[in-house]
């Protein structure tokens, strides 16, 4: 049943987002074409307009996705559509899992499209070399390629993005336990949960610092860090984010299983 729910949830979201994806990539290609045909002022103006449109579409896909995921979650779990959602013969945890997986997948697709769009607009050998030169000290420390380095950075941002989305879902679930001011309470709870998740990340990061004086320097000094320490911090933060997201998911499933009170 999870597969069937996910199929419909994904279809609904990707249908909406595909408009942004197609337009974003279309303008990205136009930008590339217009800025490379010749150096005339007219082509530059048209190219810059296309670049603006491409940025607007690619980042809108990302921002709209977050807002739409929260609004749709509220609609289908507590709004009019909840009358169908909660009367389908599916387990409650499947309903939440489908919403969360939709968030994870659509965020990932939006991210890939965004990267693809930026690649189309900006990729050239000179730009790649400039980027490589800028971050080569870090890449050398990690002993990784430019691509792996970028993937690691994007992955940390992606995990943070998923954490924000999930905190929003938790806020909506907790807010709807109140009879009045559900929206206000949802926003307040979402913010509090997000802050708590960030504090937890800091606490998780602090634990190894107790046992390692070099790592403790992250918290007690502003001096440049040993690159080995930074390497450990990046890997440890990725693990911490994954743990936080899994714990958040399990808490929300538990809250969801306690039952709902639809509007």
């Amino acid at each position, binding site marked *: *049943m999870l597969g069937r729910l996910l199929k419909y949830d994904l279809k609904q979201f990707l249908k909406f987002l595909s408009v942004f994806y197609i337009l974003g990539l279309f303008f990205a290609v136009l930008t590339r074409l217009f800025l490379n045909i010749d150096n005339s002022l007219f082509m530059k103006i048209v190219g810059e307009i296309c670049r603006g449109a491409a940025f607007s579409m690619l980042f809108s896909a990302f921002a709209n996705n977050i807002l739409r995921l929260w609004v749709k979650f509220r609609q289908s779990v507590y709004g009019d559509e909840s*009358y169908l959602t*909660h009367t*389908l013969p599916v387990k409650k945890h499947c309903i939440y899992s489908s919403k969360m997986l939709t968030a994870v997948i659509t965020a990932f697709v939006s991210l890939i499209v965004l990267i693809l769009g930026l690649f189309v607009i900006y990729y050239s050998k000179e730009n790649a070399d400039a980027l490589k030169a800028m971050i080569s000290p870090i890449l050398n420390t990690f002993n990784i390629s430019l691509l792996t380095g970028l993937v690691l950075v994007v992955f940390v941002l992606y995990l943070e993005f998923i954490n924000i989305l999930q905190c929003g879902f938790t806020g909506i679930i907790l807010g709807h336990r109140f009879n009045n001011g559900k929206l206000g309470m949802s926003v307040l709870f979402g913010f509090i949960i997000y802050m708590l998740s960030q504090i937890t990340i800091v606490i998780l990061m602090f634990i190894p610092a107790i046992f390692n004086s070099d790592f403790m320097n992250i918290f007690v000094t502003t001096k440049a860090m040993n690159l080995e320490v930074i390497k450990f911090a990046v890997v440890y933060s990725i693990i911490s984010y994954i743990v936080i997201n899994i714990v958040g998911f399990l808490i929300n499933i538990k809250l969801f299983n306690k039952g709902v*009170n639809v509007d």
Partner: protein
Amino acid sequence: MNTILELKNLNKSFGAKKVLENINLTIPRGKIVGLLGKNGTGKSTLIKLINDLLTPTSGEVLINGKSPSVESKKIIAYLPERTYLDKSMKVAQVIKYFAEFYDNFDSQKAYKLLEELGLDVNQKLAKMSKGMQEKVQLVLVMSRKADLYILDEPLGGVDPATREYILDTILSNFNEGASVIISTHLINDIERILDDVIFINDGKIILHSECDKLRTEQGGSVDEIFRRMFRC
């Protein structure tokens, strides 16, 4: 098991406000029951509790002897009072959706009923009037071979000419051995199809009786008795 629905000491409060108080009710199989009461007396809350859309403050809801669960949702066909379908979908897509999720959904029957009601299966729900959407929802519910049909204000947004058709549709399409609970305040329209009647007021069941017995004992139609009891 002859009992399809049992409510035991059921209470529901929203904050300090008690909406349902100590509801005890047993609905046997094969009955059409009218859940009647004025607006805001707790009819819809009771129905939502049966459908797992609300969590009871205390007490128990038992469907076929079990608490609301995946199994109970398989055997309950529920028509809410509001339009709840994704409006970006076409009618045919909604039928496919129901066929995928409900094993007891009969797509052929749904297409037949839609045709009789003159509804276009290729039309988007967003392009339909509220009345047409409600008809689609009724068709979806009545195309299931359920054990318990719960219809919340099925005649609410429908023109008087179509009401007769809808009542006939309910009568001729509900599964044999199944029960139907109809919540409404349009008593005159549905009285002819009811076996039992429940009057609810201020969150309490104040009367539960067979319709014929009630008419004989109190004199007059159910509609008249209701009006006498709830006169403002």
